[in-house]
């Protein structure tokens, strides 16, 4: 079985984020790392594609030929990667990204495509369904458990009230939540092996995606204004000297909650 895992490479979320002063889009010029949210998909893919001849293939779209996040996922055990990197992609929106990812995914002829439910930096959460629609595949979003059984995938899908058991025939797109599996840490051996694993770097035209579908103009949306939000003013901070509960009670009484 071939499992494609979409992995996004993003600016380190622990560092303060910055917007490009001209386009107001996220500054992605620095070093990028594997989005934590995608480590779950990679782990899930590795567990589902553990048989002989099974493969996990990574697909990523990122600027400047970035591969450091891909290397992390390759070190976890993925076999190879397709990276789409092209200056024409700067400012691409979610739909344009989905078009690029779908075209790259097709090349890997997957039985199953895994994504996260949403990325850490853009978090539109629309890519999984967009990719599925572009590929003409069924999709099950918000998976908290996945099993493959013959030609179909069975998923426990989070819902407002609890969860649903949902299944569909393969090939399919499934988006995973952070609860789906516990990602492994890459071993030293894995890290060494990752260095020589193949990464196929493609441009937009290699994929046959029209230049008018991507980039800032393909996005057909613009950011018109950016401003600082007024910080919520902090209140009274007191150290509990055995009176903590009373302080809370007094506060709730004042608000007439009790």
């Amino acid at each position, binding site marked *: 079985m071939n499992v494609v895992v979409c992995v996004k490479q993003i600016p380190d979320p622990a560092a303060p984020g910055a917007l490009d002063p001209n386009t107001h889009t996220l500054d992605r010029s620095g070093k990028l790392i594997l989005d934590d949210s995608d480590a779950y998909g990679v782990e899930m893919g590795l567990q589902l594609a553990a048989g002989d001849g099974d493969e996990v293939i990574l697909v990523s779209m990122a600027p400047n030929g970035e591969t450091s996040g891909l290397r992390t996922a390759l070190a976890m055990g993925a076999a190879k990667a397709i990276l789409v990197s092209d200056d024409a992609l700067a400012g691409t929106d979610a739909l344009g990204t989905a078009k690029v990812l779908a075209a790259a995914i097709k090349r890997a002829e997957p039985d199953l495509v895994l994504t996260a439910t949403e990325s850490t930096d853009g978090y539109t959460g629309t890519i999984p369904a967009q990719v599925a629609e572009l590929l003409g595949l069924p999709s099950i979003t918000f998976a908290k458990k996945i099993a493959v059984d013959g030609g179909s995938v069975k998923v426990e899908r989070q819902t407002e009230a609890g969860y*649903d058991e949902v299944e569909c025939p393969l090939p399919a797109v499934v988006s995973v939540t952070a609860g789906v599996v516990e990602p492994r840490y890459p071993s030293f051996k894995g890290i060494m092996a990752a260095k020589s694993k193949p990464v196929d770097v493609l441009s937009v035209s290699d994929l046959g995606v029209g230049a008018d579908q991507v980039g800032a103009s393909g996005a057909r949306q613009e950011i018109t204004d950016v401003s600082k939000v007024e910080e919520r003013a902090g209140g009274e901070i007191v150290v509990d000297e055995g009176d903590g509960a009373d302080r809370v009670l007094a506060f709730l009484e004042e608000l007439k909650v009790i």
Partner: protein
Amino acid sequence: MALDNVWVLAEVTESGPTSLSLELLTEARKIGSKVAAVSWGAHTAEHAAMLGEYGASKVYDVGDVGETLPGVPVAGAIAALVAGGDRPDALLIPASYDGRDVAGRLSVKLDRPVLTNVVGLSDDGQSTQHTLFGGTTALSARFTGDGPFLYVVRAKSFAAEPGGGASPEVVSAPAPEAGPAGATKVSARHVEERSGPKLDEAPVIVSGGRGLGSADKYEMIEELANLLHGAAGASRAIVDAGWVPYARQVGQTGKTVKPNVYIACGISGATQHLVGMKGSKNIVAINKDQDAPIFSVADLGIVGDVHKVVPALIEKLKSR
């Protein structure tokens, strides 16, 4: 100038339209001169009057989608309406599980981009507001191409208020044949126990985080919430750890809540948690680390041990 036709993707359950759907209908009245709702499932007709009361003069009823997930058939039905010439200038879509599926599918079918995580709209419905970097930065955006404009809106961005509208006209808008994409099948539905008010509707929320130390300590969070007639919430750390169901999660990837009082117990206050709760009217934080970021948004901060403060609070409330 307001938009002409604004549609709302309204999720209608057995007990009625979801609160987010009503929030969107209320906002649609403000930005559009004509408001319609698009609904699916078995309960549309029975609750159509309420959709009307909140602003819909017309309801497109996709009908029962059977055991398939709604994303494909509902997006298909809307695309079919548009192809037939019945098109909205804007469609407001709830940022919910099914709402996001519909948005993604529909954007491809119509080849239209989506503005997502919308938390505000200009009166003319042409400009959206978003927050980023943990709510420290606000951003406005707009579409530069043709509609229909697809907006995915977060919960609690607008207050739901009935507008006194009459019962709407309900028209059938069946889903077209879906092909392989529609081949999902829900074989069982599991409802996790929940007592008391819903998280996004409760006037008081008591949330627990990793500072509780272990899963069994979450009981005191539930007990305190109960005593305050509120709901119990959680940080993602303890949801991922499997202590509590996801439905309790507050934050960027969970629920956005704006209760009268939010009490955070043993929660550090990561930006992804803060974005989901800092719109609360009053915030109380209990954390043993005086430098915890949660204190920066707290109206009352208790630097202390949750295992002492919370049980004492429970005792005192019980003895009142």
